[in-house]
């Protein structure tokens, strides 16, 4: 096992780029991302970056493999992990919404989603009795094909929904990228992390 000054878990894709810019802007000496194929960037003794599926970011941070991570609030709402989330980074805005076929007002009996914990909690709060079907992608198809009466999914512009002929019935939660920190690491590496958090909070254009 290699030892790093700090290990940062980031979701691959667009959020990786944005998080990289923001963290570097806050003064972190990030390693260059040269090899596109590498999943771990950085040299021993420096800062390491892990490129992960977004759902895995809270897992790596909770279990202390990475001390810090950046991930969308939507993922945190579904992770059920006990983490610190001290900063709203503002980018990656999207919403978690309830989506149905147009005009469909029948009771919801089956609901498809990539967010099973969040959806189960919603059902419990509302007192709805429905089965939750966990899917991994193209969730809107579940509503189009009748696999489910409704879906809970992430919406950015709504273009995908409109193209599929579905309607956004209700916005359930708003999401932006958050800085998350492992509970032990915040204390043990506070000389590094406390100033980082302060800088990220005071950044220009922060919400």
């Amino acid at each position, binding site marked *: 096992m290699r030892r790093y000054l700090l290990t940062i878990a980031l979701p691959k894709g667009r959020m990786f780029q944005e998080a990289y810019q923001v963290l570097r802007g806050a003064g972190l000496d990030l390693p260059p991302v040269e090899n596109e194929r590498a999943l771990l960037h950085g040299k021993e003794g420096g800062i390491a970056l892990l490129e992960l599926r977004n759902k895995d970011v809270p897992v790596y941070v909770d279990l202390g493999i990475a001390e810090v991570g950046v991930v969308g609030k939507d993922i945190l709402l579904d992770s059920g992990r006990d983490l610190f989330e*001290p900063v709203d980074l503002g980018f990656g805005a999207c919403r978690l919404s309830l989506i149905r076929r147009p005009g469909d007002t029948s009771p919801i009996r089956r609901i498809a989603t990539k967010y099973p914990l969040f959806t189960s909690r919603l059902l419990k709060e509302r007192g709805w009795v429905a089965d939750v079907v966990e899917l991994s992608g193209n969730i809107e198809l579940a509503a189009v094909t009748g696999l489910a009466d409704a879906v809970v999914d992430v919406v950015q512009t709504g273009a995908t929904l409109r193209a599929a002929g579905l309607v956004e019935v209700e916005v359930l939660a708003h999401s932006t990228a958050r800085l998350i920190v492992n509970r*032990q690491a915040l204390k043990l590496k*506070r000389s590094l992390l406390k100033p980082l958090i302060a800088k990220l909070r005071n950044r220009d254009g922060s919400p």
Partner: protein
Amino acid sequence: MIPEGTRFLLPPEARLKAELIGRLRELFLRHGYEPVELPALESYDPSHPLAQRAFKLVDKTGEVLALRSEFTTLLAKLLRPHLGEGVHRFQYAGPLWLREADAELGRLREYTQVGLELIGATGPLADAEVLHLAFAALEALGLEGVVEVGLPSLVGEVLKASGLPEGAQQEAQRAIHRKNLPELEALLGRYPLPPEARKTLLALPDLYGEREVLEEAKGLPLPERAKRALADLEKTLEVLDRPVLLDLGMARRYEYYSGIFFRAYTPGFGLPLLGGGRYDGALLPQAAGFALGVERALEALRPPQKEEAPEVLALDLKALRRFAGERRVELFHGEDPVGYAQRRGIPFLAQGERLWRVG
């Protein structure tokens, strides 16, 4: 063969685990903590703090039983009718079970705790005793530990005095617990609050670090009872006279913990090794204690992968009887004892009364 989240231990881990438990029990005993034993089966009680997460079984009468999920609640219940005046000290050790969904790194469904309870004493000196023993326990295990102390009662008092409705208090507690300043700000923005309460609540998540945190906290407009809790903590740390980390934003179970709450970490290991606190009035009028997770300590120590060789290889039963009282001896079976001893690095051979160094 064995269910998820359970473990079997082989040498040398099994021996190391028994040794660790022995060292802690001995340490606690030397400080006046007498061992108690509790059954692993309890009657299921829905008001038990871990009721939902405990394993359940059905008794022959049809009643539901629960497998022990922590020691403190049952110990306090059993003791309540029997405790007289004065100070009592108890220690316990044994396996616990939780029906957790996920078993992960250092999180098991069957695990072992060693812990203690100091009953019938309260105040800075009693808190310092318990904290001192937490440090001593880490030292006895040979672990480099950092103890972090919080004051959930302070968060509780500030929330109670804030005038927030109860639902919002809980939401605020959750945001403070996650150090989620943006959401705490948004939440407080929805309610009319006195400016002092707002200022204090927004300061709580960032009150972590070393002694300077106490000074920062004292500068805040705090309700009377919170001020007293803070003064007590300062006195406790003075008596303890060791550096600790502070996190005054630790807001875990503030209705249960009446004073301090603490945890210990070790660098390079992502989960707390021990946890405890003061819970006067929750189960007993005056009580504080902590419990240490033995499997986590084992994992943090990263035990040697090799089995340790004995000191003496006995060539007959007489030698085994003669030397096993004072050294680690193994009886030899097979041919060529000298070659065997050399291969395993056993320094001595013994036959009858005779003991000699392997040439």
